[in-house]
């Protein structure tokens, strides 16, 4: 829970204050997917992410300080300022990277799964991408190969109803993106991506399948991007009414309510957590601000390994 909130608050903060240059794609409203998926991964498993990757990274255990520092372009950032919002990774925790190319990580994830399978390491790969990315050729090619080789990968489609300004329902002619798995001969499942438990349950099944060597699963997690696509998005392509309706289904609120109802969280604990998270975010910002700029003299270093 802490992670979800940390994530949301952080990204929102970044986004609204506009403290960093470049661009950022907040995943506000999609937190239950990141947390639900990553909570089912073990050491030796891997994650690939997208342009909307801060949430995945934090859910996988990324250090908010270093993520924030990367957004600020600082030397202490995950990519030492070289990557920015869309290009950061921490292999030590299994996070193989965000990705600036829509659909770009799908083949990478599948290749990582091929390496894992060949080594019989029993690790699996969780591959995040959006509804828009399912229209890329690389989606098709990679899912087909993962199918014929029974690779240990879970394809997690975050269907947030939009690819930038394009409605998912305008970009495909099918009811559910999960159907696309039929073209490759493995299971496709559509779930409520704002329901943490539903995500965890579906991921549990998909992981079992992958770990058993039975091949991939496509999980379509239906959700809503509560914010704009990226900084500067006026959201003219959708109605405020639609946004308000989805606000009622905010996964953070839903999860909190559920936890309180289940007696796993008290109002006091909740306040405490919020306080801690807010503090952690401030710390991250302070860390980022105080970190040194990269040294321009190092510009040419590290092009080759």
């Amino acid at each position, binding site marked *: 829970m802490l992670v979800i909130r940390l994530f949301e608050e952080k990204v929102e903060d970044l986004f609204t204050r506009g403290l960093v240059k470049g661009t950022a794609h907040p995943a506000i409203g999609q937190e239950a997917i990141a947390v639900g998926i990553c909570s089912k991964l073990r050491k030796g498993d891997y994650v690939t992410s997208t342009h909307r990757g801060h949430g995945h990274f934090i859910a996988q255990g990324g250090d908010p300080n270093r993520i924030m520092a990367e957004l600020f372009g600082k030397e202490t950032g995950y990519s030492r300022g070289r990557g920015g919002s869309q290009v950061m990774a921490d292999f030590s925790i299994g996070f193989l990277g965000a990705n600036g*190319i829509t659909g770009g990580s799908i083949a990478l994830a599948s290749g990582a799964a091929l390496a894992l399978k060949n080594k019989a390491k029993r690790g699996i790969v969780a591959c995040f991408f959006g509804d828009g990315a399912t229209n890329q050729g690389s989606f098709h090619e990679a899912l087909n190969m993962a199918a014929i080789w029974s690779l240990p990968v879970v394809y997690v489609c975050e269907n947030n109803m939009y690819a930038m300004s394009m409605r998912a329902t305008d970009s495909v002619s099918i009811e559910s993106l999960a159907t696309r798995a039929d073209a490759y001969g493995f299971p496709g499942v559509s779930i409520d991506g704002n329901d943490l438990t539903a995500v965890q349950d579906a991921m549990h099944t998909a992981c079992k399948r992958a770990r058993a060597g039975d091949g991939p699963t496509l999980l379509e997690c239906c959700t809503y991007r509560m914010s704009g696509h990226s900084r500067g998005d006026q959201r003219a392509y959708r109605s405020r009414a639609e946004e308000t309706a989805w606000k009622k289904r905010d996964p953070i609120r839903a999860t909190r309510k559920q936890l309180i109802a289940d007696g796993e969280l008290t109002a006091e604990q909740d306040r405490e957590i919020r306080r801690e998270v807010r503090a952690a975010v401030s710390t991250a910002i302070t860390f980022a601000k105080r970190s040194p700029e990269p040294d321009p003299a190092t510009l040419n270093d590290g092009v080759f390994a």
Partner: protein
Amino acid sequence: MREISYSDALREALQEEMSRDSEVLLIGEDIGTYGGAFGVTRGLLDRFGPDRVVETPISEGGFVGMAVGASLLGARPVVEIMFMDFMTLVVDPLVNQAAKLHYVYGEQAACPLVVRTPSGGGRSYGPTHSQVFEAWFAHTPGLKVVAPSTPADAKGLMKAAIRDNNPVLFVEHKMLYPTRGPVPGRGSRPIPIGKARIARRGTDVTIIAWSWLALEAEAAADALAVDGIDAEVIDMRTLSPLDMETVIESVQRTGRLVIADEAPRSGGVSADIGVRVFEQVFDYLDGPIRRVTTPDVPVPASPVLEQAALPNRERIAAAAAELCGAY
């Protein structure tokens, strides 16, 4: 003449050509209500409707291939690729299909296709949203490549590109969109593809640039003038085919040459221009040439590193001054 922005100039060109010829259609991601990532196509969906402003799923390779197919039946598609970095996904339809069609199929086939795309760095968008790939396409027989720097040239060359019966890559540097300048109004004429423009006359050194760096080169020339160096600035405008005539004529007058190119040093268009000068006017040069380019590194996101990587007016001026013996 009224002054408008580079984006507005492009939009005017698109709108005028769409009104003039019903075969002209726009294809791309988020080019409708959103107006394109940089706002160039704003308002055109309302004006021309969804048959003329075709919003696509994220399938760059596919819709460029489709644009090629449509062009074979007489359509004149203008495709937007949201960032030049994503041109990596459309190399096959452009190089293996579009560029060869007229050569192999002869008069029956034409491919009047324009691919528009914002290039370059300067906005800290990071290594996959800041690249310059002009050299790849200038290396492809059958493709034309233009990269105008002023709003007026943007409008005129866009008109020419749309009316051209060949595939044209139209490079719009993202730093240029907000820049303003005088632009002729409705019914203005196309500017011919393949002609460089002497942006400033001078006698001491020729500075060649294009796209965003043409503006930086002019600023460099201003700075050099203060030091008593009279620089000529050539805005190439077209990168394929190259207008070597204008270049050679200038270099023969000035005897010194600086080429500014935002692409990584190895294999950029700067090399191509440089070697042609070498081949053609060896005897006229008073000294070696200087190229001001990005080094062979990915473009970093951090503003500090990005500024260290990219060519700019200071570096251009320094190279010219060094050639002129000022340092």
